[in-house]
């Protein structure tokens, strides 16, 4: 078997596993979010479908699947149908460059084909040279799903929701991008594996300590980018009914939801990679490659789970910003802080070089 075919098989498997894994994590997230919120609010949450309500996402999926597809009169049919697709495609495409916890080593088991034994499989779909810039590009395209949904619905609440989200995502993308720059400066690379490798050793080598202001900006801007409370204005229920997805039902609604959750997972995974050491355990005697690389994967998964829990926690605690306060906060606090910190880091890097 030629090496090209081998590589293709490997990549195909990784793509399928990542895609399936993301779908699984997305559906689990919907359940866990509800359970976590319920716990914070003295409620039970869904716990009847399967053990601990584990099959609730399946039930939800079936329900959504059989709901009526509804396209409002006066809606722009093409864009209305296209919007969820755009949202979900950009969301999934941006997951391609995320590094999901280093590399796995296939154990040298005798029943495996020879080329597979001892093969190191990178848990990343594409290790691009432009690295996180690619993610930046796709997340900026992700806005269009929301904008199209808002405009095509022919609904005033949806339109205002679309307006809000285009302004919000645009503004916070800037802060988000600026918060990456110190990491890039320190690592001297756009590639996630190199960024992760730069944080090896003890946990105080993680970027979140040395680059704390950037980490802070990242978390806040990431929350906004994922449209989570307290930045969930585009769909502010009590103001705009459901914002840009007011008119969506059935699977189109599910796709929009999926896009949001996948974005949230991407933000979490990226944060884990860039600021929390990714696959690194933070303990030099426990390298991420230990136990065929499972240690690295678990360390990464735990960090992502921490991020996700943080997002749920926020939702259980905070009220939502007002639109203009949000813009002021983004432009007058986050962007200047991130920009100034870039100057500081650049100065330090230049001085040390």
């Amino acid at each position, binding site marked *: 078997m030629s090496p090209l075919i081998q590589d293709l098989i490997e990549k195909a498997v990784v793509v399928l596993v990542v895609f399936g894994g993301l779908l699984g994590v997305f559906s689990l997230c919907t359940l866990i979010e509800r359970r976590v919120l319920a716990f914070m609010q003295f409620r039970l949450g869904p716990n009847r479908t399967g053990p601990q309500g584990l099959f609730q996402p399946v039930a939800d999926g079936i329900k959504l699947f059989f709901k009526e597809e509804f396209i409002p009169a006066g809606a*722009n049919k093409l*864009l209305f149908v296209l919007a969820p697709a755009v949202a979900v495609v950009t969301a999934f495409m941006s997951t391609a460059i995320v590094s999901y916890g280093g590399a796995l080593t296939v154990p040298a088991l005798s029943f495996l084909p020879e080329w597979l034994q001892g093969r190191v499989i990178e848990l990343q779909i594409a290790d*691009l*040279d*432009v690295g996180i*810039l*690619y993610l*930046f*590009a*796709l997340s*900026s*395209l992700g*806005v*269009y799903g929301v*904008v*199209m949904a*808002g*405009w095509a619905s022919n609904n005033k609440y949806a*339109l205002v929701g*679309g*307006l809000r989200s*285009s*302004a919000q*995502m*645009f503004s916070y*993308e800037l802060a988000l991008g600026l918060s990456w720059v110190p990491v890039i400066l320190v690592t001297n690379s*756009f590639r996630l594996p190199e960024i992760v490798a730069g944080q090896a050793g003890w946990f105080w080598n993680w970027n979140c300590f040395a680059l704390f202001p950037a980490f802070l900006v990242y978390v806040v801007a990431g929350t906004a980018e994922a449209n989570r409370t307290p930045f969930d204005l585009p769909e502010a229920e009590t103001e705009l009914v459901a914002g840009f997805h007011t008119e969506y039902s059935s699977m189109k609604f599910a796709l929009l939801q999926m896009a949001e959750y996948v974005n949230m997972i991407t933000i979490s995974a990226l944060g884990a990679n860039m600021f929390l050491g990714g696959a690194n355990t933070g303990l030099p005697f426990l390298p991420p490659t230990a136990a065929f690389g499972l240690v690295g994967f678990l360390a990464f998964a735990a960090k992502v789970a921490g991020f996700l829990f943080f997002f749920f926690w926020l939702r259980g605690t905070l009220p939502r910003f007002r639109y203009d306060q949000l813009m002021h906060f983004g432009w007058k606090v986050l962007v200047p802080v991130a920009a100034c910190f870039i100057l500081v880091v650049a100065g330090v890097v230049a001085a040390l070089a």
Partner: protein
Amino acid sequence: MIESVLFYTFAALALVSAVVVIAQKSPFYSAFGLIVVLCSLSGIFAVLGSPFIAVIQLVVYAGAIMVLFLFVLMLLNVQRETDDVGGSAPLRLAAAALASAFAAQVAAVIARARIVSGPEQYEASTRKVAELLFSPAFLYVFEATSILILAALVGAIVLAKRDL
């Protein structure tokens, strides 16, 4: 082989969308058409081995500038063009004449152009682009452009500030 297929696909997509941009009466369709054009261009850049330019194309044009376009369109709730904007017969005649003159010019340029294959071992990685951009050859131009953009930014804020 794959590169060629991708290139022509993107090129065709870009051309069709470009026609949509000017032919559509709804400004929204035009804007979305333009977004597709920009994305296709980005694809072409990627095929040509310039991932950095491709990504920047997406970030700046498709991601930022077009969002602002759409934002304004939504904010003003722009309607479809209803009346016939073709204008009077003399205007159409003049337009046709200008268009054909332009077409002839383009044809002449294409006819005279020599198609050469790209440089072998061409590498336009981010690092290379950066090194070139910050090399003495382009540094001055690059910085001057930055200052120009900054000035434009400040000017825009000053103009807009009046009713903020």
